[in-house]
């Protein structure tokens, strides 16, 4: 569905159903240079199992218009305006990579509006190497290839994503290229710069009061599990789950395990 946020179309995928704000709402937030479609399996399941689903396309990504936002704080503010526009007072937030920082910051800004927090493939600080930042600015295809290769642990994901017969690594590459084609900006560089600059993660985590899940890929090279220590220490009550045979593209490499952990967490 399309909402109007700050004068621009803001697209939210609702999991294949009409969004119903009277149901418990789960918001899915994608990472850098991605869009809602990375969550297609999990969002469809939640939407058909008692939840209202909003899988956003961040501004400048996919179907959402407007300039890409340049800081995690600005993205969190935008997300709260999405909740307002959708008529949602309180929601659980699930974020992947950059999306996990947005979820964390949203909780810090408006703790009363966040019921649960699931941080998927996260780290803090989420530092991006100069090599990757420069590539994102000057040679975007090279940055896409680096991230795509580092995000996958295998060329044989089973049962593959979004289903049998799809080549997950090819899909990852094309999605990032698709985001590039749809924007005149250097979205990848903007996203990476926002991750790199975000400095409120530890403070935000120390203030978390809602149930929290860390869902990590054991072989994640982009946000390795050890780089999550600052956040997991700051939220000692959080549940931490590490998935086997899984890199940074958790939803593509282990879609069922991601879904099962998220659904258990959201329904307990």
């Amino acid at each position: 569905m399309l909402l109007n946020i700050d004068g621009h179309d803001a697209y939210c995928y609702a999991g294949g159903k009409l969004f119903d704000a009277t149901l418990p709402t789960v918001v899915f937030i994608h990472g850098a240079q991605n869009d809602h479609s990375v969550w297609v399996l999990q969002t469809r399941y939640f939407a058909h199992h008692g939840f209202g689903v909003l899988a956003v396309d961040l501004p400048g990504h996919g179907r959402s218009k407007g300039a890409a936002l340049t800081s995690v704080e600005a993205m969190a503010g935008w997300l709260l305006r999405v909740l307002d526009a959708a008529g949602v007072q309180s929601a659980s937030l699930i974020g992947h990579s950059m999306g996990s920082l947005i979820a964390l910051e949203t909780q810090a800004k408006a703790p009363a509006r966040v019921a649960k927090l699931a941080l998927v493939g996260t780290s803090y600080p989420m530092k991006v190497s100069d090599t990757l930042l420069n590539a994102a600015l000057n040679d975007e295809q090279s940055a896409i290839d680096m991230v795509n290769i580092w995000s996958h642990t295998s060329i044989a994901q089973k049962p593959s994503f979004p289903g049998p017969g799809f080549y997950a690594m090819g899909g990852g590459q094309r999605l990032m290229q698709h985001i590039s084609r749809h924007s005149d900006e250097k979205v990848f560089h903007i996203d990476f710069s926002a991750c790199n600059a975000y400095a409120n993660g530890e403070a935000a985590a120390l203030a978390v009061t809602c149930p929290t899940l860390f869902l990590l890929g054991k072989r994640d090279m982009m946000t390795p599990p050890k780089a999550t220590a600052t956040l997991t220490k700051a939220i000692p009550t959080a549940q931490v789950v590490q998935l086997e045979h899984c890199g940074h593209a958790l939803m593509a490499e282990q879609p069922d395990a991601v879904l099962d952990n998220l659904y258990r967490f959201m329904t307990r």
Partner: protein
Amino acid sequence: MSGPTYPGFDTLALHAGAAPDPTTGARATPIYLTSAFVFKDSDHAASLFNMERAGHVYSRISNPTNAVLEERIAALEGGVAGIATASGQAAMHLGLVTIAGAGSHIVASRALYGGSQNLLAYTLKRFGIETTFVDPRDLDAWRAAIRPNTKVLFGETLGNPGLDVLNIPQIAAIAHEHYLPLMVDSTFTTPYLLRPFEHGADLVFHSATKFLCGHGTAIGGLLVDGGTFDWQQAYEKTGRFGELCEPYDGFHGMVFSEESSVAPFSLRARREGLRDFGAVMSPHNAFAILQGVETLALRMEKHVANTRKVVEFLVAHAAVESVSYPELASHPDHALAKTLLPKGCGAVFSFNIKGTRAAGRRFVEALSIFSHLANVGDAKSLVIHPASTTHFRVPPEQLVAAGMTEGTMRLSVGLEDVDDLIDDLGRGLKASQKGA
């Protein structure tokens, strides 16, 4: 500093899509000869049917053996998804009817395999899909043939029978100017010789029966989605492709372009086309084709090397009127072939023997290594004489119109010792001229 690199072609040919079997540890891809797959519980069943989980339900829709082949060809082509079909014809049909229906129009090269020509000119026409055929070398003709109801441009990477090299970059540019996809039949080239997505094509299909299988043992087709074409943008600009961008009643109102930003075509092709037309590949055939794909690079190198020597021999032979192979300077697409096909122009080509139908018959009947049959892309060398087989009722003047003569031969050069092949052809050519 150099960055990380993707696995190379040979590695993908052996490993993409396949992991050791988690239950048995089997290293080779098992043949899952099962019609259906047991659900864990009712919720699992419902979630598989409703695309909330990835997995197998029924082998007409997906099968683990087929999935390995599908993911492997997608990786080798540089695409996002593959679909294994009962034959190459089924792959072509699935590709076209996923986006075209009654009232649609296709622009196609006129230099096509006879089966493809029949499907477009006669069979799809019966279902309301019209095709305009154009000279594949005439770029203006491609552009001029596009209508408001055109859904796709289509050609073969190497056309039939003259091996016209499809100018994929230019024809793709014309297609994309009109927010249309370009689909190509890449059977003769395979991803080893040409990766059409790198040059602008959006959809590829193969008769996997040929070089991908490589041993003449299985019929099958593969449809590959490059994930390059922006169906949603085309829909917004032209109103075309509502099949992918509007709610589909046949799948609970699913809007495929919302489910996947890059592969809505493959979602619909599988969830509608495989489900309803049902032209799926047997897992047994998928296994046979996988064995071929594992050695594709090795075989294609030898196919091309042998072909080059055979072509050289034929060009110099007194009984040969002409040879049509794009690596020859005399071929009209020689320059384009150098650009698009630097590794070689395949192993199927035609040449003309001096003389009439009778000379052609004498040639074919004198051969002992080349098998006279209607197939190409086997490890074994093959030959067919169109004027005495597929076109035996066609008068000489109509043969010329179709780009042939009474002495036209089509060879598919195999992997035998090339000196033996040349000896065999020499015997045939000598016999062809007896009584001439």
